[in-house]
């Protein structure tokens, strides 16, 4: 069977255009605004390229050099330093684990203090929130530097840095989770004769615990990435060795360290996603 194709005549087009004016001609105001936004973005980009000193030959020679380094990276080889690197890997894991846990323990009370439905006083929760914002505004590497001057070089400074940064972020997330609480289960428990404490235990905790646990695991994943770099400022872990080997241009060791990082992050992602599914069920998590 052959299909019939209709060729629209000019008269038909005009009729359609009259019937559906919005569909047939693009709104010129919206188009002008979109083009203006694009032009502004491009102009800013050109200005930034100029100001930050981009040049094509610098880019070209850099890429050539980078390609050369990449050829030197194969095969990855730790040399005789494998035990040292395994120890650094352990330190990295310890930093991620204790940092996340410490941050979460600190964040829990602050999460309640920053929640509107727990502290109705607007000044109190506004103050707590701005405090958390300020803690979050400082990057974890800056915290690491500060802690290195306070407790000295080593992984302990890294733990404190990761804990402080996670505290700021988790505090905000916890307060949002607490604000989203449904009061009805608590009322249900109390109305059937439960005490206030039992209301919290059986009405509130089951609601917040899965959310908190899944956020905690998510932060453990992200902190395991972050804890690899706090070593760059001397706070322990793989980053210390990585920065050192890059400085002395030992490319095979560099690629081995990066490989270790990738494997570690992959394994942790796998384990924590399994744990997350076990805790909150097979639901899809949007993080």
């Amino acid at each position: 069977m052959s299909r019939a194709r209709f060729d629209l005549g000019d008269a038909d087009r005009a009729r359609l255009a009259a019937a559906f004016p919005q569909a047939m001609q693009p709104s010129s105001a919206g188009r002008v605004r979109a083009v203006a936004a694009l032009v502004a973005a491009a102009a800013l980009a050109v200005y930034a390229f100029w100001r930050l000193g981009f040049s094509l030959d610098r880019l070209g020679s850099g890429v050539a050099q980078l390609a050369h380094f990449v050829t030197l990276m194969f095969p990855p080889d730790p040399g005789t330093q494998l035990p040292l690197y395994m120890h650094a890997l352990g330190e990295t894991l310890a930093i991620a684990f204790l940092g996340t846990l410490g941050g979460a323990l600190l964040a829990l009370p602050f999460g309640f203090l920053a929640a509107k439905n727990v502290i109705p006083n607007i000044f109190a929760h506004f103050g707590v929130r701005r405090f958390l914002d300020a803690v979050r505004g400082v990057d974890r590497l800056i915290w690491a530097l500060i802690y290195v001057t306070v407790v000295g070089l080593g992984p302990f400074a890294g733990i404190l840095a990761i804990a402080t940064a996670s505290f700021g972020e988790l505090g905000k997330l916890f307060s949002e989770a607490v604000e989203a609480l449904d009061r009805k289960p608590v009322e249900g428990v109390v109305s059937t004769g439960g005490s206030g404490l039992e209301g919290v235990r059986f009405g509130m905790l089951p609601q917040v615990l899965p959310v908190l646990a899944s956020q905690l695991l998510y932060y453990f994943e992200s902190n395991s990435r972050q804890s690899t770099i706090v070593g760059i400022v001397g706070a322990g872990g793989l980053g210390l060795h990585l920065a050192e080997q890059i400085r002395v241009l030992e490319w095979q060791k560099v690629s081995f360290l990066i490989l270790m990082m990738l494997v570690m992050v992959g394994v942790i992602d796998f384990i924590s996603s399994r744990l997350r599914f076990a805790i909150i069920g097979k639901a899809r998590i949007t993080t």
Partner: protein
Amino acid sequence: MPHAVPILPDDQLAPLLTRYDAAVRERQRHTLIGVAVVVACIFLSGWMGEVRPLVFLEHMDRLPNYFWTILPTLHWATLWSDLSEWYWNLDHWLKLLVDTILIAYLGTLLGGIGAFFLSFLASANLVANPFIRVTARRFLEFCRTVPELVFALLFVVAFGLGPLPGVLALAIHTMGALGKLFAEVVENIDMKPVEGATSSGASWSEAVRFAVVPQVSSNFASYGLLRFEINVREASIMGFVGAGGIGQDLIEAIRKFYYSDVSAILLLIIGTVMIIDLLTEQVRHRLLGLEGSR
């Protein structure tokens, strides 16, 4: 109306109760094992991480002291001159701050452009060829797993000191992070416009341009702005490894114990990050509102 609660006879109730107890015990056993594992991990990592709680407690006062010392001495009578002494290098710092924001901007823009093109290739509903899709996904995964500071360290060696390696490092990491989010948005679109475009003769790229992009653009922009916020924070530390921005001055101030400089630069960074957070939040709400009204 009173409800009758049926009470089962004992011989029916007993097996149910034992099974209930067994189920409860099973759960308690799981919880106990979980707690034991966590406690073991805490001790293990405390040992690995050289945690010395006693030493920490002993030197606990150093942390508040540090924050106390980095605060400038301001007197009400000489407030103006004290302030100008505190921010003695303000012109230079503001210049570096603008550099930092521009590094974040370029990194987000370049990374966003890369993520835009790769996300369509990584989406299961647009690309039937598993080889292309899996390759695109693995590539994005690699880009976001390696921390941006590691890229920055490598690029500083290859490209030399300055903002250029910082921008490239941010762009690569941003491409990985945004590419994943973008691909998720693309996989959740309504496929009917795509089918409509394809059935009326559109090629793959035309279908993407006219059927996919209009559906995803506001979400993409919103994610891009969120990433810009994060990148401003990241760009502020790129200077730690010599990759441009205000981080260079900050690390010098901290290392050389120029106390009041530390607080001055930190406050500048925190203020900038907060202002940018607020601005992007406004724009994002408007973008999401656009999405909702359509």
